[in-house]
């Protein structure tokens, strides 16, 4: 026969009707002879009764309107969001082009043509337009533009970074071969 501790663990399930018929019958048989377990069951029933006696609360009169307004606002959001990426992208392109102009002005004249050609290629690329950050990538923290794309374009020597880590990596790879 189960001990009182074992029975106690199952009283919650008995109360909720979650026991198999044979389990329930065994526990009922035990309860008939065990005052302690009967008290435990009574305490559980009273715990539930205390909860059920709590006042309920109805929603405020404007609750449903709040929900409908929130749903309408949610439905309207995509139209507003459609404009944000285009505006942000346009602002970024202007920023990039301004900085590219400053960068180009600092270059020796013979290099400007090559870089301008590269910039035009990048801008013409859908990837650049969608991700202008790729065009204006910093060179691993030395704060010069476009050295990443220059390297990828096979023109790392054009990069004006004094301590360009990308250059170093390429040189190290070449020395290692």
């Amino acid at each position: 026969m189960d001990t009182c501790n074992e029975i106690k663990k199952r009283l919650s399930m008995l109360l909720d009707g979650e026991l198999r018929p044979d389990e329930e019958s065994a526990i009922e048989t035990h309860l008939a002879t065990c005052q302690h377990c009967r008290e435990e069951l009574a305490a559980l029933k009273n715990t539930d009764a205390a909860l059920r006696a709590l006042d309920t609360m109805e929603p405020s009169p404007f609750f449903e309107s709040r929900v409908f307004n929130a749903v309408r606002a949610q439905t309207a959001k995509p139209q507003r969001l459609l404009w944000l990426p285009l505006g942000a992208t346009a602002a970024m392109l202007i920023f990039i082009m301004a900085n590219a102009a400053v960068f180009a002005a600092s270059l020796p004249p013979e290099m400007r043509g090559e870089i301008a050609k590269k910039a035009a290629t990048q801008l013409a690329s859908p990837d650049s337009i969608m991700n202008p950050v790729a065009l204006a990538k910093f060179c691993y923290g030395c704060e010069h533009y476009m050295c990443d794309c220059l390297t990828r374009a096979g023109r790392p020597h054009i990069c004006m970074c004094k301590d360009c880590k990308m250059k170093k990596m390429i040189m190290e790879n070449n020395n290692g071969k």
Partner: protein
Amino acid sequence: MSPNAEFPDNDDFALLSAAARGDGTAFEHLVHKYSVRLVGFLYRFTGERSAAEDLSQETFLKLYKNAASFRPEAKFTTLLYSIAAHTALDAKRRTKARPFLSGLFHRDETGEAREIDFPDNAATTPLEILDRAETGARVQKALSALPEQQRMALLLKVYEDRPYSEIAEILGVTVPAVESLLFRARQNLRTGLSELILK
């Protein structure tokens, strides 16, 4: 707002599908049908009207946003309460636990434990009303002091009378886990209400 007579009362997934296709009336019908029940349930979980309404609104909004992705593989109320439970549990983790108080049953002349008669809604005198309010406040405090998952499981059982299998589905746990949660919840609540116990 009256329910739309075009939709059968028991075909909540059909309403949800209609809402996913842009039928605002269908979604309004769902909100109207379940708002009282949902807000009441979440009020018992949070103990606060504003929190209960905020969580209910968030639940309905999540239901609407994902309406197209739900399939009628389970009961609609299981889906609704699953969203509500996870929303409430996530929110509760970000708030502080509240203190608790109070207790449970008495012995009769034979020494047998007997239920306490909790004041019913017919309390009319100021003293009865005050007594009821104080008892209710104590019980709510004790309930609010339970760990969130225990509290949620207990409310789903006691108020919603859900079977363990459904509670497991709502909370995303196993049935044995629900058994354990309910056992510990009742033990902890009983401890929290111990001022009224065994006089």
